[in-house]
């Protein structure tokens, strides 16, 4: 399966796991987790430089950008204008035109405001951005994002950081069936089987942060996720057996001794 790579906007990635950079116990642990995960794309937030305290170590000192592609996000933006402005700053800071577009609709659920999201997507696509929008598991919205020029759609599996796993598998399956761009399940993964399951549904990739950064052993969980994503992808391609209500013998029912 060496040739089964993730391709977004013409760029090829070795791993179908997209990893975050937030909430790790330390930058050193993050670096180890990134290494263990095998991921080659990581999300970063765009934030004001801390003027008062310049001692703070820089995140980038812990990321080998020759191996890890940076995907700036617009987390914390509550309307299209804020998101567009943040995306532009991210482009300057990162010297890349990719953006994980977030337009949040509400603080408690951190669910996206899809109407603003579609608007911001259209604006940024016109400006030459490669836009990866974080959205709900809504096939209609995903189609609109695609029509607006999104390079992938990133439906959530569950609320950000909730660890609830894929709440609506049927929607993810339908989105995969209808989309002509990669479908990346973003948010909601809590443990390895959630990631495997997402991939078995046909997701092209999974983006996660808290599930790894918040685990008791982030490095071990990162390695776990590396395997979980591979397992799910391979199972999707291999074609699982059908479900049956009853049993079917694995061993021959003839040639039994003494019968």
């Amino acid at each position, binding site marked *: 399966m060496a040739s089964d790579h993730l391709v977004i906007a013409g760029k090829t990635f070795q791993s179908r796991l997209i990893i975050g*950079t937030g*909430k790790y116990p330390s930058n050193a642990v993050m670096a180890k987790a990134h290494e263990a995960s095998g991921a080659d794309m990581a999300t970063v937030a765009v934030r004001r430089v801390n003027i008062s305290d310049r001692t703070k170590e820089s995140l980038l000192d812990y990321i080998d950008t020759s191996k890890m592609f940076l995907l700036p996000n617009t987390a914390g933006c509550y309307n299209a204008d804020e998101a567009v402005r943040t995306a532009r700053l991210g482009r300057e800071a990162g010297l890349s035109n990719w953006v994980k577009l977030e337009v949040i609709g509400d603080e408690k659920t951190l669910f996206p405001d899809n109407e603003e999201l579609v608007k911001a997507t259209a604006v940024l696509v016109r400006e030459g951005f490669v836009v990866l929008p974080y959205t709900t598991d809504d096939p209609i919205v995903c189609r609109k994002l695609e029509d607006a020029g999104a390079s992938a759609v990133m439906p959530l599996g569950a609320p950000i950081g909730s660890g609830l796993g894929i709440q609506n598998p049927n929607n993810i399956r339908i989105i995969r069936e209808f989309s002509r761009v990669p479908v990346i399940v973003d948010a909601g993964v809590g443990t390895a089987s959630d990631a495997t399951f997402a991939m078995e549904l046909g997701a092209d990739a999974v983006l996660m942060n808290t599930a790894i950064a918040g685990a008791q052993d982030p490095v071990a969980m990162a390695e776990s996720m590396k395997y979980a994503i591979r397992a799910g992808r391979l199972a999707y391609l291999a074609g699982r057996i059908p479900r049956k209500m009853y049993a079917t013998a694995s061993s021959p029912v003839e040639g039994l001794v003494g019968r």
Partner: protein
Amino acid sequence: MFTKIVHITLNGDPLDVPGPVSVTRLLKSLEIDARRVAVEHNLVIVKRAAFDETIVNDGDTVEIVNFAGGG
């Protein structure tokens, strides 16, 4: 000769700096590595190549951002 002081708004907070000053000199005075930040001057992105000739004047608003951990 003497230096004038300009009152600017930097990342949302008021700041007095010797000026008018270029973005490049402003960053240096703040000990910020210019290669790792993005700068917005009066709501307009400042391309890195323009850091030298972009002058921050009295009353201007400047945003200096970089990457932080996120998901």
